[in-house]
């Protein structure tokens, strides 16, 4: 087999030192994606720094009423946490919509943010792929792309980000915290993922050698009435072809606050700010929901075989917001 180094870090400083010392080093969380990709040769790290023993496995309430979630919290623990379920139900639902029980027991929050696309060209080392092998081309544009991006893509890459969790985090303005040799830093999720442009292999704004230490979720009362809905090609154990995280606060029939994020439509979880703007202060009706979806999706540039995603996302916006509005009215 292909040889690689393995070291287990016991504290954050140690992990950061190990990651900083070797540009070929990668942090190993649950390994549910990285190890798979190592087996197929897509990822070839020289060094794995196992961070599972780091003291980053807690979920705590912040002083302002938000949540702080450690990077090595498992998906299972995140979804099961009473405060997550109470304050950000869409986040728990999103996590539970992904993978399987066994995988969720292993997968970590930090790793989830950094997981790679499941584009079939990316995962096959015999194929060209600008993300895996910069400059080799993107066969998906002309080839198989019915699951690919309709928003924010470029001719260089049309892959989608696979995370369910990230969609809910995008809706709730999560902030990613990291540590480097030079000290700590943070990135709002909206700035965490880089635009595709001509450099699809550069996926995040994390500085080299940085270790994600956790997330914070700012307080968001609107999130208490939130929902995640995922559509996929089988009932379980498949990535989304379209998903939505939505939160809605309706007062007297008027949208007081709304959060919307889309999954499986872009290289990153897609915060639907145009739709939010269109809705805020307006009526909470199916017509308004549809018009808001249209406003967001006006920027969509579907490929020949994924135009259905425009319809799908519009339908999901209308369906999920209608459900939330009806529940609020009860």
């Amino acid at each position, binding site marked *: 087999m292909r040889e690689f180094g393995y070291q287990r870090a016991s504290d954050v400083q140690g992990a950061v030192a190990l990651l900083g010392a070797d540009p070929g080093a990668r942090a190993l969380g649950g390994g549910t994606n990285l190890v798979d990709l190592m087996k197929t040769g897509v990822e070839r790290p020289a060094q794995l720094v196992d961070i599972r023993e780091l003291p980053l496995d807690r979920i705590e309430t912040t002083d302002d009423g938000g949540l702080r979630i450690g990077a090595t919290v498992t998906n299972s623990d995140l979804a099961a946490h009473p405060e997550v379920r109470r304050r950000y139900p869409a986040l728990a639902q999103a996590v539970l919509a992904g993978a399987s029980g066994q995988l969720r027991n292993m997968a970590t929050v930090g790793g989830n943010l950094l997981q790679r696309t499941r584009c079939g060209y990316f995962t096959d080392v015999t194929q060209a792929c600008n993300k895996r092998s910069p400059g080799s081309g993107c066969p998906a544009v002309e080839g*198989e792309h019915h699951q690919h991006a309709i928003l924010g893509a470029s001719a260089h890459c049309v892959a989608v980000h696979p995370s369910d969790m990230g969609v809910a985090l995008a809706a709730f303005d999560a902030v990613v915290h990291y540590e480097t040799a030079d000290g700590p830093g943070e990135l709002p999720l909206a700035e965490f993922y880089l635009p595709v442009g001509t450099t699809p292999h550069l996926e995040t704004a994390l500085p080299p050698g940085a270790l994600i230490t956790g997330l914070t979720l700012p307080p968001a009362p609107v999130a208490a009435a939130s929902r995640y809905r995922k559509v996929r090609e089988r009932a379980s154990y498949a990535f989304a072809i379209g998903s939505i995280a939505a939160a809605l606060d309706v007062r007297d029939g008027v949208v007081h606050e709304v959060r919307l994020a889309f999954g499986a439509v872009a290289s990153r979880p897609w915060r639907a700010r145009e739709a939010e703007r269109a809705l805020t202060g307006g009526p909470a009706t199916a017509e308004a929901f549809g018009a808001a979806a249209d406003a967001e999706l006006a920027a969509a540039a579907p490929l020949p075989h994924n135009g259905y995603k425009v319809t799908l996302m519009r339908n999901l916006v209308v369906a999920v917001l209608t459900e939330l509005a009806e529940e609020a009215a009860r």
Partner: protein
Amino acid sequence: MTTVTTSTAGTTGSVGAAHARLEGRDKVTGAARYAGEVPFAELAHGWLVLSTITRGRIRSVETGPVLEMPGVLTVLHHGNAPRIDGNYQGMMGPPDPVIQVFQHDRVPHAGWPVALVVAETSEQAREAAESLVVRYEEEPHDVVFGAGSPGAYVPDSETPTEKGDVEAELASSAVVVDAEYTTPEEHHSAMEPHAAMARWDSGRLEVVDSNQGSMWVASELAKLFSLDPGAVRVRSEHVGGAFGAKGIRPHQVCAVMAATVLHRPVRVVLTRRQTFSLVGYRSPTAQRVRLGADADGRLRAVDHQALSVTSTVHEFLERSADAGRAMYAADALHTVNRLVRVDVPTPTFMRAPGEAPGSFALESALDELAEKCGIDPIALRARNEPAVGPASGLPFSSRNLLACFDEGAARFGWAQRDPRPGIRREGRWLLGTGTAASSFPSGAAPSTASVTAEADGSFTVRITAADVGTGARTALTLIAADALEVAPERIRMKIADSDFGPAMVAGGSMGTRSWAWAVTTAAADLREQLALGGGIPPQGITVRADTGAAVQALTQKERHSFGAQFAEVAVDVTSGEVRVRRMLGVFAAGRIVNPLTARSQFIGGMTWGLSMALHEEAVRDQASGGHVGADLAGYHFAAHADVPPIEAAWVEDPDPDDPVGIKGIGEIGIVGAAAAIANAVWHATGVRHRNLPIRPDRVLQAGTAAHGAG
């Protein structure tokens, strides 16, 4: 010497009672060893290197650097591999050239075997194989298949059915259905990938394999390597699924080559990804069905034309149009199977070859006809029940299709069904139910078996049967027990060893029927011998049977299993999701040997049908000619959450003139299941889905009849 006790024991009744698999405990505890995990001293490991181009020539295989890598023993390729002889007629005709590995520099399709790296460990072999540089001269390829594919032809192996004047009958029909259906490329995806160990032992070639016919594999290896048939022994103790893909395949040939070159045991295990190009698959199909009927639904014409794909190097015909040859009475019947050759791997038999895709088209078309005639779909089928084989004119050995529909309709609650489409709603879900008929030929092939009365009062049965996970070992034990009139505990059932002699493979739903015939014949002969009295010598008394003549003498009849499939679905047309809520299959499949494992086979087949209806589809990239997502993350089959409660039942289906009374049950479960689901989707939404799988994007774009397309 012991005294004979069998003739008076008179124990029968094992057949028909539920018995757990004999090897079930070993399997669930891990004690059962599969071909990839049987230990051998000095075992070396081979790893296949497959072409990354789709068409062209190998210019060079740069073995130098790889041979320097740790543990690497050899690299076999077209420049140095032993010569083999593929010019022969095997059990299934001439061999697929993909098994004639490393004999020339041509690459006829993506994923063609170009080299085998052998090393001390599997990891070393893999590392070296993935490092091996192979240079190619690439040529343009064509992998496109569809209804309009140029170059379609009727192969020599196909005899179209031509009865009556289809065009005239269509012209005078009050109601006509003329529709095109497609099914995609589908893969067997057995849980256990292919694995084989080969070694030479005292001048004999021994292969430990995972296959569905050890005699089949042994005879092909003997021919390929120009060996005396007796010099090859193939065993296949446990098999983790086969479904038609586990015959002679490149891994066995590679293992034998490497064992011959290295003079030590070599094992070759395929990766999941490799199985997508090396072990066959179900061809995509494009089918056109035309039905003409009187206003009351009486069929005047059935025309079923099917197109499937084959490779440029070998011919395999997916006989989809055969599905209707024995189904419905019609004044005119026309069926034809055509092929088109492109630069893809050769397809092969996959669970219910022909019938699975063919029944989707035909049974969907019947449902469309029922709708157009305003007749209940079951009544339509009853109205067209034939007295004799519609194409052959032969009598049916037994035909209990309508009994299946009667029983199924009662269990499913069909009488309460409102035939109008698109009117049942539950929240975001539209609900519908559908039905379809099912049938599969019931053949038999010559087999040999031996039964030994042991001195201790037990019996040993030897037959080159294969238990591919179906419970065949257990079923044959029950059959032997009844034939010998002893309790099953006194039977020692030895299977899957080519030294036991020729026998049918586990295929064509013919295995248990063919093997049971040989076992009961041998047992009957043995009982006659034992009835003469006298004792049993220490080596026992062995009787062999060969059913060759008896199978030949079987009266020419239409012999089929039949079934009725029912499904209820929920469809969300705003997301495109389809969920199957329940399925029921009622089958007339002869004598059921072991109700426990039979039920598993039926519901397993029905689950395949569900998966075919909604999920399965191998996607080929036209530019590269290879697959996209050739693994179980990319190739979706139904997950547990997709599979609803499935009920399988059977009706009496006796045939007093049949020597065994058993019909196959391995394949009929899938037949018609996809059509039942597609018909239920129509009933839910009012929109016909004629292209499988019924993916969310297709449902979403089709919408509902009420809202129109889009």
